[in-house]
């Protein structure tokens, strides 16, 4: 209420700025940032100069050593404002430079408006300022290029997977290439490394080394790093376990020689000591005195660990003392050793080498993606920059001081700060309020408590006929047939709970139930039959997911299982192929349906994943996570790190590509659709493919699979990798690497993602953990919403601080707890709600109640509702008798071989159908003309609740469209088959599920008579039937 009043206050025009209300967003956008940027450093949590903090209203009111800093409503008397006006130089603030005049005006206006400080600020730690990560520095950047001697990169090479690497070309431009046999020096026992397109280094291309793999230079290609020269060597590698001693050789300079001939030994080599997990070993000295020195292993063990960025530098001077090394930016303990300086000058031609070098010195086992050798020791910022570059490139988190610097300034909020937001608190099952006898359903008890507290008198129960109609539409989306209506009327008497429950059960068993309630979920899943790219390619396989959802509701699949399968069904199917393999695979269509963009495969992929994350967030958590793509969420706790932790999970997931313009122009086939059968059966089905048919071959090529293999638009496990944070949401501004995980503010502990997995399974398991505060609440609220027209939380996709608070928090928690206790059964929840007396109330008004609770928040009556788009169409088809209740097969898309869609020639078909509306083919670039007109779902973004608009275009459609005309004619034709006395009754019964009153009958008779006189009986009946179909009564449910 305070905020509503405050929103009337406006900035005085005298400040020269446009008239702006001093409200929440004014504070957040104009006041708080100024305070954070200019004041917090000295007057915040860390420093309180002059005893003053300015990070809360209370602190300002309390003030510092010289008294209160703020007089609300009186800027001129507030020391804070006086200070920023700088009238008294001794008290001028900030000390160094004046605030911009606009900022002064804003603060002044804010104080004059009473200095409102939003009392509720759930963001615990608000990071400000840009991520202070070291600026990434590429090896060929201006600073580093002059020192760059060797630069080996496995990416961007023309090699094929599995190909031996005979020559690894140097990208420094200096020609310091490494060749395979030279690794073995003149003994000739080396073998080439093998190129792996997807290595152990987060799936990046790399060269795989084995114990006998060696690469090295020769006189022509050796970099001039000699004697006690400085160098910096950076390796991106993952080292595998090695059996027993001796040390495995990683890289080195010069020529290692056996102890048998110490006189020839001259080298500095880096090895790995397999004992103790693989610490780094430095071997050198090897000077003219020929006394080899082995320095003990140091630093963190490397074997079988995650991929690392290994940085080794050496200054001039003794080897051990002058060498330093870092693993992922973390400085490692120094080597201990003697003061020897290796003499490399005697064999300058041998240069730099990697891996195996001598028959008695085995190479290391592992993958190397990139090697950078520079001929000087880098300064700290340079080294950190290079590491930041590699970290972003290879998704290797830097855990050293570089990354720890992030979030320079933090605002620890108000002292009055309440970290608690109801939705993030655990669900506790409250006791059921007491209530009078006859109110046994707990829902009624909770609701009645609300009536009592507000002084509301509930209206009566709805009449039986209205209830039956309401129930049928609610559970099946269709009106009762005249027979069903009569049958139910005969059985039901007011508050007859036994028969009522029986009717509910009968409808829950009806196949129509899954179609109705599945559709509600398809709204949330932003279901469509096209991909959404610039040409809007058809996805014939999308329907597998649609059917999966309908079937899941039909069979009352527990919601936790439903959730798991949609996020990780493929993983579950692989574990137990015998159990519902196809369905589980199809379930991940929920993710695959993410919106596609542009014209090529996986273009603007960060936007597609934004849709994935946004949909997962809103659907399961009721959280709008996409704000955190570019910055920490302004109003809710999710941070940018939370966003990219999820991003990594989905980036580690392989999504299908359904085609786009380049499918047409460059003939790129579709990719990564998922067979509905396990791999072994794919082989069998492939064998069934007819041979030699040109069209079949072409169709198979374009599909990505033989035509005999059934496919789903689904996801599968990809290459596991952490995400790189995108600064300001820009993919070309990489920030630090973020480990995969779930939003930290909701998780008691980080999830553990086993090696080789994306983390979707763990995400799903975390969502359905017993004490998750959101999952059950969000789903129970959706169920409630579709029964009552409005959720207990009116913003079903937003349970954050900007969402609506629950109207009945205890009821919501009680229902959420019961939902879990009943095994997440959605049908049990239906039964509970539909058997309540609250649901069965009439929809009539009551002026006294309306004065207290005009929006019916406290449910003193049932909310009258307009039919939604699907119900309108289905009910019209039911009345006309043309509705086809079978589930249709594939949509009549043109054959895949005929697809040539581009942004110039988009796919924009719609197909006529007599099936239920849930089966209509819907696209993304064009909204379905009928569904769009009647507020159907958005196929581009998750829809939590639909609007219900009234626009003249609807009236035009209903009066004049050929579609309604056709249904009206069929409806009239059906009625006209009957004997005259039955006609009007049947027409009313089919349209309204009731008989006409005497007055209505005579009115209709006279209309028919007048109309028929001019146009004949058939036209008259068509007109009557059309108007029944488009009238208020047909469209609304009492």
């Amino acid at each position: 209420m305070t905020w509503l009043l405050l929103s009337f206050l406006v900035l005085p025009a005298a400040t020269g700025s446009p008239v702006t209300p001093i409200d929440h967003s004014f504070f957040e956008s104009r006041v708080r940032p100024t305070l954070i940027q200019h004041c917090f450093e000295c007057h915040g949590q860390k420093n309180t100069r002059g005893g003053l903090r300015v990070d809360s209203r209370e602190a300002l009111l309390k003030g510092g050593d010289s008294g209160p800093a703020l007089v609300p409503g009186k800027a001129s008397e507030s020391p804070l404002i006086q200070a920023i006006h700088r009238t008294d130089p001794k008290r001028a603030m900030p000390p160094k430079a004046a605030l911009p005049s606009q900022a002064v005006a804003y603060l002044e206006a804010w104080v004059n408006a009473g200095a409102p400080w939003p009392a509720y600020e759930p963001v615990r730690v608000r990071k400000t300022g840009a991520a202070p990560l070291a600026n990434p520095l590429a090896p060929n950047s201006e600073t580093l290029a002059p020192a760059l001697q060797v630069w080996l990169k496995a990416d961007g090479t023309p090699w094929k997977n599995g190909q031996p690497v005979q020559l690894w070309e140097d990208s420094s431009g200096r020609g310091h290439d490494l060749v395979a046999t030279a690794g073995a020096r003149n003994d000739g026992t080396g073998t080439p490394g093998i190129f792996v397109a997807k290595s152990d280094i987060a799936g990046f291309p790399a060269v795989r080394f084995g114990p006998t793999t060696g690469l090295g230079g020769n006189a022509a290609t050796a970099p001039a790093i000699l004697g006690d020269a400085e160098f910096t060597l950076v390796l991106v590698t993952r080292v595998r376990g090695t059996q027993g001693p001796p040390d495995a050789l990683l890289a080195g300079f010069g020529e290692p020689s056996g102890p048998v001939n110490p006189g020839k030994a001259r080298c500095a080599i880096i090895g790995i000591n397999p004992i103790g997990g693989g610490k780094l070993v430095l071997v050198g000295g090897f000077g003219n005195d020929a006394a080899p020195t082995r320095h003990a292993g140091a630093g963190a063990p490397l074997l079988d660990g995650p991929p690392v960025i290994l940085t080794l530098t050496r200054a001039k001077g003794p080897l051990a003392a002058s060498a330093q090394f870092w693993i992922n930016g973390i400085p490692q303990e120094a080597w201990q050793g003697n003061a020897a300086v290796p003499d490399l000058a005697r064999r300058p031609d041998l240069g730099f080498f990697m891996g195996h070098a001598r028959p008695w010195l085995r190479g290391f086992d592992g993958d190397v993606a990139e090697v950078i050798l520079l001929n000087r020791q880098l300064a700290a910022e340079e080294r950190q920059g290079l590491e930041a570059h590699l970290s972003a490139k290879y998704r290797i988190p830097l855990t050293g001081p570089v990354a720890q610097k992030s979030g320079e300034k933090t605002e620890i909020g108000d002292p009055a700060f309440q970290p608690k937001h109801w939705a993030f608190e655990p669900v506790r099952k409250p006791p059921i309020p007491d209530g009078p006898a006859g109110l046994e359903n707990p829902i009624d008890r909770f609701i009645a408590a609300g009536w009592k507290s507000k002084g509301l008198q509930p209206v009566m129960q709805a009449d039986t006929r209205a209830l039956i109609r309401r129930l049928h539409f609610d559970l099946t989306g269709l009106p009762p047939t005249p027979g069903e209506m009569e049958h139910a009327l005969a059985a039901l008497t007011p508050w007859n709970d036994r028969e009522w429950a029986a009717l509910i059960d009968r409808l829950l068993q009806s196949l129509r139930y899954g179609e109705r309630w599945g559709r509600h979920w398809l709204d949330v899943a932003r279901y469509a039959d096209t991909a959404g790219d610039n040409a809007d390619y058809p996805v014939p396989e999308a329907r597998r997911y649609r059917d999966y959802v309908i079937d899941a509701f039909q069979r009352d699949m527990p919601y936790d299982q439903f959730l798991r399968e949609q996020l990780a069904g493929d993983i579950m199917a692989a574990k137990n192929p015998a159990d519902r393999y196809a369905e589980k695979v199809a379930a991940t269509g929920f993710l695959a349906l993410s919106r596609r963009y542009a014209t090529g495969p996986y273009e603007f992929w960060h936007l597609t994943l934004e849709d994935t994350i946004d949909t997962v967030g809103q659907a399961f958590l009721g959280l709008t996570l996409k704000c955190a793509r570019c910055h920490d969420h302004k109003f809710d706790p999710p941070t940018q790190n939370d966003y990219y932790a999820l991003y990594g999970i989905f980036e580690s997931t392989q999504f299908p590509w359904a085609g786009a313009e380049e499918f047409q122009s460059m003939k790129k086939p579709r990719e990564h659709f998922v067979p509905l059968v396990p791999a072994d059966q794919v082989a069998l089905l492939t064998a069934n493919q007819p041979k030699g048919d040109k069209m079949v071959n072409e169709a198979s090529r374009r599909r990505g699979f033989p035509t005999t293999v059934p496919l789903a638009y689904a996801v599968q496990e990809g290459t596991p990798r952490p995400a790189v944070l995108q600064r300001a949401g820009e993919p070309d501004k990489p920030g630090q690497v973020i480990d995969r995980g779930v939003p930290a503010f909701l998780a008691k502990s980080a999830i553990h993602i086993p090696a080789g997995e994306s983390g979707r399974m763990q995400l799903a398991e975390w969502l359905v953990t017993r004490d998750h505060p959101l999952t059950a609440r969000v789903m129970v609220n959706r169920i409630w919403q579709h029964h009552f027209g409005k959720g207990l939380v009116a913003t079903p996709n937003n349970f954050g601080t900007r969402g609506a608070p629950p109207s009945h928090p205890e009821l919501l928690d009680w229902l959420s707890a019961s939902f879990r206790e009943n095994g997440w059964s959605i049908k049990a929840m239906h039964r509970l709600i539909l058997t309540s007396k609250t649901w069965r109330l009439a929809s009539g008004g009551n002026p006294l109640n309306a004065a207290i609770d005009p929006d019916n928040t406290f449910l003193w009556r049932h909310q009258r509702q307009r039919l939604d788009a699907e119900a309108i169409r289905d009910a019209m088809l039911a009345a006309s008798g043309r509705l086809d209740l079978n589930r249709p097969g594939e949509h009549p898309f043109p054959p895949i071989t005929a697809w040539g869609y581009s942004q110039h020639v988009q796919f924009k078909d719609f197909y006529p159908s007599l099936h239920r509306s849930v089966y209509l083919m819907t696209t993304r670039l064009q909204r379905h003309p009928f569904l769009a007109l009647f507020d159907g779902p958005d196929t581009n973004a998750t829809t939590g609740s639909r609007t219900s608009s009234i626009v003249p275009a609807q009236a035009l459609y209903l009066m004049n469209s050929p579609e309604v005309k056709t249904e009206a004619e069929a409806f009239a034709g059906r009625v006209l088959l009957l004997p005259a006395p039955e006609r009007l009754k049947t027409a009313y019964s089919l349209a309204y599920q009731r008989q006409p009153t005497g007055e209505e009958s005579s009115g209709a008779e006279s209309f028919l008579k007048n109309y028929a006189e001019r146009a004949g009986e058939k036209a008259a009946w068509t007109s009557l039937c059309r108007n029944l179909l488009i009238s208020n009564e047909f469209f609304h449910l009492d």
Partner: protein
Amino acid sequence: MELSGRTMDRRQLGIASLLGYGWTRRMMAADLRPLTPVAPHHPPKANRLIKIFLTGGFSHVDTFDTKPALARDKGKIVDGFNLRGVAKVPLLPSPFKFTPRGQSGLMVSELFPHLGAHADDLCVIRSMKTDIVEHFQASLAMHTGSATIPLPSMGAWLSYGLGTQNSNLPSYVVLCEHLPYGGSQVWDSNFLPPVHQGVRVVPGADPIPNLKPVVQDTTLRALEAGLLDDLNQRFSGARPGDLVLPARTESFRTARGMMEIAPKVLDFSAESAETLDAYGVKPGDNGSFAWQCLAARRLAENGVRTVEIIDSGASNNWDAHGNMEEHRPKAKRADKPLAALLSDLKRRGMLADTLVAICTEFGRTPFDAGLGRNHWHRAFTCLLAGAEVKGGTTYGVTDEYGIDVVENPCHVHDYHATILHLMGIDHERLTYRHAGRDYRLTDVAGNVVKSILA
């Protein structure tokens, strides 16, 4: 319910919750008729907008941004970049002659002889920029401010922010023969209430969907209207206090009004032969570009807030990759009717409070190895006229080849902010709460180009 960002609504809601039922009724009534005119943020210069969107991307250096240096340095190799990389490409001079036109001497190419005669009314913004150089994304950006995710169209925002002046016509009409890149998303209301979405008029025999009555006989139509009103009123009469039901009944009356008015608006028989001739509308013509321009004037005149003409559609448009001569027939089709539209508006005294915005997706590369030009988003040209915008002027400067903006850049967001400003709207204050945040047409950017305003 998520609150709308219109100050009017917020204030009404605040009062309503303080005073209770009666006020709420009024507020809901206003909500149910969301096209009621709303006061602008400041006195507007323009009461209506006619937007002409030339699809495909017309070339700035061949139309309104004359570049003699291209001829001088013909064939000079520059770093050109295209969709997928950088290449060395020779400069390509314009095959079209530029001459100074009007009192102002504004340089206009031979492609627009008639429009050039209106040079003194045109404000040529030569420093336009957009973010993504693909048709789909750039079309979406020019319409919704967003190059990637579909958001409400500018016409929908104007409808939401200002309402309409004629309840018998939609507040945003799109004359669109062929779908543009991005399809109907470009005029969609997206998360704004659907009443604000553009109504597509397809030039031809049946321009507004479902406008033609299924029952031709007017007596029967009246009978039917009586029946429907009776059915509806019977139902709502028994349910007092429900405001949705009468509003729905009312929507049928409005629709009947549209059925009556809209065909008259699109019926040119009252136009003088002189006017028809000036536009180039021939007898029996019901769909040419000339017809669309005249229809735009008539719709605007009858109170439609935003009329948009989408020229050509997603193929066979200004996308002249192969040869710049392909601009000639496109320009020929648009030039005379556009000129006639400006004179017509002026003659009727409407130009002073009508904003005419001629815009496109992006420009075209000043360089090419062939005879055509590729997409170019770093610099292009759009026009404004009317609404007291300074005519005969240019805003912004590109370098001597038209490759980059060197002075006063005008991003699409700035163009939108300026149009909204002229329509009386502060682009930072026209917001709508959706999915937990306040959205606006200009995202978090946009500056009004003040210097071109009178």
